[in-house]
């Protein structure tokens, strides 16, 4: 779904409490959020529970989304990521008052997505398919170098050096 359409649905949710619009957002996002958690090795139960929490945040907090700052999908991804961090923190038996700490550790970036769009396009253009795949496996799916080496059937040293050279290559397009 295009960003424009998603933003429109989000507005209907925040301004009119439009359940039909929310149902559309649910149908679009729930399978992505759920898949993201499963890819990050959460159980089926945990994935669905967190998916529901993320969508509840969208339902209650859609008014905090600012279309001038980011695309809607980036905003949703950030919420999903934060919920995953909170889950890991909970698993480490933290005290309830500790939960505030995460908010300081992951506050919103002052740079808007639109300021960096040209760098993003350039990186997408310049990285080949294998390099994009390595970035995806390593950072989006959070696979260890060892697992990546097994899945791609290449030595672990090659995985490390390819990731390093990909990150170096990206540096050129970051300024």
């Amino acid at each position, binding site marked *: 779904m295009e960003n424009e359409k998603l933003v429109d649905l989000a507005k209907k949710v925040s301004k009119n409490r439009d359940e039909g619009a929310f149902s559309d957002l649910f*149908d679009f996002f*729930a*399978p*992505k959020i*759920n*898949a*993201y958690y499963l*890819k990050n090795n959460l159980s089926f139960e945990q994935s*669905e529970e967190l998916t*529901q*929490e*993320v*969508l*509840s*945040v*969208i*339902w*209650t*907090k859609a008014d*905090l989304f*600012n279309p001038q*700052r980011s*695309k809607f*999908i*980036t905003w*949703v*991804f*950030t*919420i999903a990521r934060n919920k*995953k*961090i*909170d889950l890991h*923190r909970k698993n*480490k038996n933290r005290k309830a008052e500790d*939960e*505030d*700490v995460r*908010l*300081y*550790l*992951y*506050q*919103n*970036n*002052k*740079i*808007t*997505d639109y*300021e*960096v769009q040209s760098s*993003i396009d350039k*990186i997408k253009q310049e990285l080949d398919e294998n390099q994009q795949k390595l970035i995806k496996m390593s*950072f*989006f799916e*959070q696979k260890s170098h060892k697992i990546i080496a097994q899945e791609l059937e290449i030595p672990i040293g090659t995985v490390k050096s390819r990731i390093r*050279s990909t*990150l*170096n290559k*990206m540096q050129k397009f*970051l300024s």
Partner: protein
Amino acid sequence: MNTSSQKNELIFGYSSGSLGEAKSLLVSTYLYLNTFASKKASIFNNILAENFANIKDVAPKKINFKDCFYTTKASIKESSTLTNSEINPLTNIIGSFDKINWKSVFKGFKEFTLPLNDDDTIKLIKMDPGTSVPLHSHNGKEYILVVDGSFYDEHGEYKKGDLQINDQRIKHHPTACDKDGCICLSITENEVVFFGKFASLLNLVTFVKSFFK
């Protein structure tokens, strides 16, 4: 020395949510102080969000959209991460630098260990103007973020908002600049290894200290 890939790896780790609390605090302070780093984080976040947009869908089986209307669990606290906030994460956690209970390590060099719950230890280090740390290297990685003042070593000068990442290949001899001295956030993954005149004594102290961690 090429640490741009190490810095990018660290920021990517932050964007993906894989770092522990100590490194997350280091990076969020880095982003707060350094616009270029902040830009990188924004770029990486978008790259991850594009992966998210293109993921192969797996529909949840047990929940439907109406369940989301009644969940109270959806934390109200999220507000500050969902809007734009420009608060210094470091002072938010420890308060003002003036009120820190510094522990003196040697003349001109003080430290304070931050109360985070993590395997990595994160410290604030305060060096008076002109104070040096003897030549040393590291068994693991060392991350040094300048949060006030500046320091220099064999590799250059580091000012407020600069991050230095050192690994075992790097030997250095940092000195706080004459004018303001230096306050840094630092994470050392493994023991420091000293070289030079008093090296054996300093290494013995480090070894003994490691038992009390």
